[in-house]
């Protein structure tokens, strides 16, 4: 039995909401109970007072396999994840073609085996993500799908969505929605308001998110399905979310790190690396969403990692592709909220790790004995200036290029095996 002991750490425990000095013992890839006087271990890691937390569980990562491997492969995404302290990626099915059959899921599962970071798959809710016919939810569940979503393509037909939800509920499958009114948001590249008007960009009113959410929540109430809203980014959507929660619906909500740390003005003079979906919001919306995260109304923070190559971004803003990479910048960007005093470290890791793991039924997100030793060691204060070309992702489309950030990952472990240390990466499996 191989044992590993992390000493002299500031342990960030999201489950009891504390940061305490201490040690963590790992035996056979699992967190072990700390026994008194047990100083002996096969390997001892002196954490030097840095923070040790459960590894990040990142929901909604886009990987370009199949179809766009030049933008991101499982291998490159895993390297980026490891460097960012991410120990589990839940990947999106909006590939080309989409992951909508058990055969396709089996193929990507095999491809994902190269990754030292744990990978689980979400699958398409409807065939071809076309919003017309239900995908084989049962087969896909058996083959390992953790949730069902058409990604950022809204199922426009409410009858189709209600049937998908009803069927998913019968199998105990979770549906992940992209709350957005598809008509109001058609063709939009920015959020309606003074900024979008001055820039002359086609825009979607913030209210379109609430409209999409209200529709989905009504169907959740009707069908009883477990539902996760992938990104809640506006103040207007928070009230219906709170009402659904109070009514006891099985509803959770996420938000991307970009909507928590950036606003519409960051687009500046048409900087396409800031084009994301939904578009960046007004500052008052950002503040409301940060507050909702601190209150626990919003459960999950994720990177919504969306690799795009230079060619798809070097276009006029309206034509440029949406999305930003985020696996490596998720933690330092999220630490901005900690340094600004909006949220404490345990609450942040609850949103980055514990809650997503529980919601998606995954191991990890815990420091309790018996949990897998998926850990991230980081210095929350170490300052640096981000250079996008230093990222491990194949695509370099980060909005944080040149940004001053604080928080460096010093090590990442999956199942007790170290998969990242700065300047030197551990060989892949």
């Amino acid at each position, binding site marked *: 039995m191989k044992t590993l002991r992390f000493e002299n750490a500031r342990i960030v425990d999201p489950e009891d909401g504390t940061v305490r000095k201490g040690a963590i013992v790992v035996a056979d890839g699992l967190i072990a109970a700390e026994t008194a006087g047990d100083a002996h271990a096969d390997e001892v890691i002196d954490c030097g007072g840095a923070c040790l937390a459960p590894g990040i569980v990142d929901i909604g990562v886009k990987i370009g396999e199949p179809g766009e491997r030049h933008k991101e492969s499982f291998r490159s995404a895993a390297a980026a994840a490891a460097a960012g302290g991410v120990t589990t990626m839940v990947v999106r099915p909006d590939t080309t073609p989409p992951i909508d059959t058990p055969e396709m899921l089996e193929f990507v599962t095999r491809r994902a085996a190269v990754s030292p970071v744990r990978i689980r798959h979400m699958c398409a809710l409807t065939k071809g993500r076309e919003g017309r016919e239900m995908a084989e939810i049962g087969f896909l569940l058996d083959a390992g799908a953790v949730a069902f979503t058409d990604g950022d393509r809204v199922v426009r037909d409410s009858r189709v969505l209600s049937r998908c939800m009803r069927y998913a509920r019968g199998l105990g499958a979770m549906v992940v929605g992209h709350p957005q009114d598809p008509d109001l948001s058609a063709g939009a590249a920015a959020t309606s308001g003074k900024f979008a008007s001055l820039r002359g960009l086609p825009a979607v009113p913030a209210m379109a998110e609430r409209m999409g959410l209200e529709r989905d929540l009504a169907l959740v109430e009707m069908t009883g399905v477990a539902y996760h809203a992938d990104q809640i980014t506006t103040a207007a959507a928070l009230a219906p979310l709170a009402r659904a929660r109070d009514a006891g619906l099985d509803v959770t909500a996420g938000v991307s790190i970009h909507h928590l740390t950036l606003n519409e003005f960051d687009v500046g003079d048409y900087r396409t690396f800031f084009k994301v979906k939904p578009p960046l919001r007004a500052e008052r919306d950002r503040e409301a969403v940060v507050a909702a995260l601190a209150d626990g109304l919003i459960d999950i923070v994720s990177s919504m990692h969306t690799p795009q190559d230079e060619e798809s971004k070097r276009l006029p803003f*309206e034509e440029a592709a949406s999305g930003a990479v985020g696996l490596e910048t998720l933690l330092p960007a999220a630490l901005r909220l900690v340094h600004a005093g909006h949220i404490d470290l345990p609450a942040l890791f609850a949103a980055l790790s514990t809650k997503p793991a529980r919601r998606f039924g995954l191991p990890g997100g815990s420091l309790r004995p018996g949990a897998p030793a998926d850990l991230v060691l980081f210095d929350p204060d170490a300052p640096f200036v981000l250079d996008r070309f230093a990222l491990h992702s194949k695509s370099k489309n980060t909005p944080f290029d040149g940004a001053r950030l604080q928080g460096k990952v010093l090590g990442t472990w999956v199942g007790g095996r170290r998969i990242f240390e700065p300047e030197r990466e551990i060989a892949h499996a």
Partner: protein
Amino acid sequence: MTFGAQHLLGIEDLRPEEIVTVLDLAERYVALNRQAKKHADALAGMTQINMFFEASTRTQASFELAGKRLGADVMNMEVQASSIKKGETLIDTAMTLNAMHPDLLVVRHPHSGAARLLAEKVDCAVLNAGDGRHEHPTQALLDALTIRRAKGRLHRLTVAICGDIAHSRVARSNILLLGKMENRIRLVAPPTLLPAGAADLGVEICEDMRRGLEGADVVMMLRLQKERMDGAFIPSEREYFHRWGLDADKLAHARPDAIVMHPGPMNRGVEIDGEIADDINRSVIQDQVEMGVAVRMAVMDLLARNLRARRADRPREFTA
């Protein structure tokens, strides 16, 4: 004289004194253009490429004439949607042209921000001739010159901008310019044709046209951009003309000496009554066209001066 810009991408980047510089120089070109010999040599030896990704007879002709009168070699490239569909991106097209060493690139493009994107990639001066719904700076400058000549000043005027403001780059550039020069601006349009956040632009909003024209010194009509209408913004043209079209009755609410402007091309009977458009006592629409050539000559002259100064600073790699 002050004008420091490297490109003219929008009114947003200009300071009030730079606007005045352009207008003052344009006055000299107005005089030149009225002479029999219309030639100047401000752009002698320089190459100007007009790159129009969106068809425009009037603006392109105006830029072409302006360049030729200043002695530039002018080339027109009509890059319609079809050739973009062949796969060449905007940047590729620009890099190809850049390799031919143009000095001035005049760009019109259907997408907002396209001119700025080009300016980041090429060595020459870029002149925005209209990008999407964003800006059309030379139109605002020529409107400013027209107003200044008709009214004797370009400040403390009440200007009503009427019509399809939501889809209009002309309106955005004019709101910025007239605001910078400290005028009172009113936007007159049905709510569906007002951009979101219009009230935050430092303007008054009037949905009733008669109230909007009350006491106006300048009535600026906009074209109802039918080609941009991807939905039903108004019920019908006739209802639009009835409520928001400029006719003698509505114009009577403006000051008796108010001038009527239109960037053209006009939809007579939709946004403006034909008789008003042709009324030589009120309409300055033909003056706008004339000022257009002069203003474009002035802008290109100033950009060329800055370009020459910049190139003189730069050490040459080798001399032949």
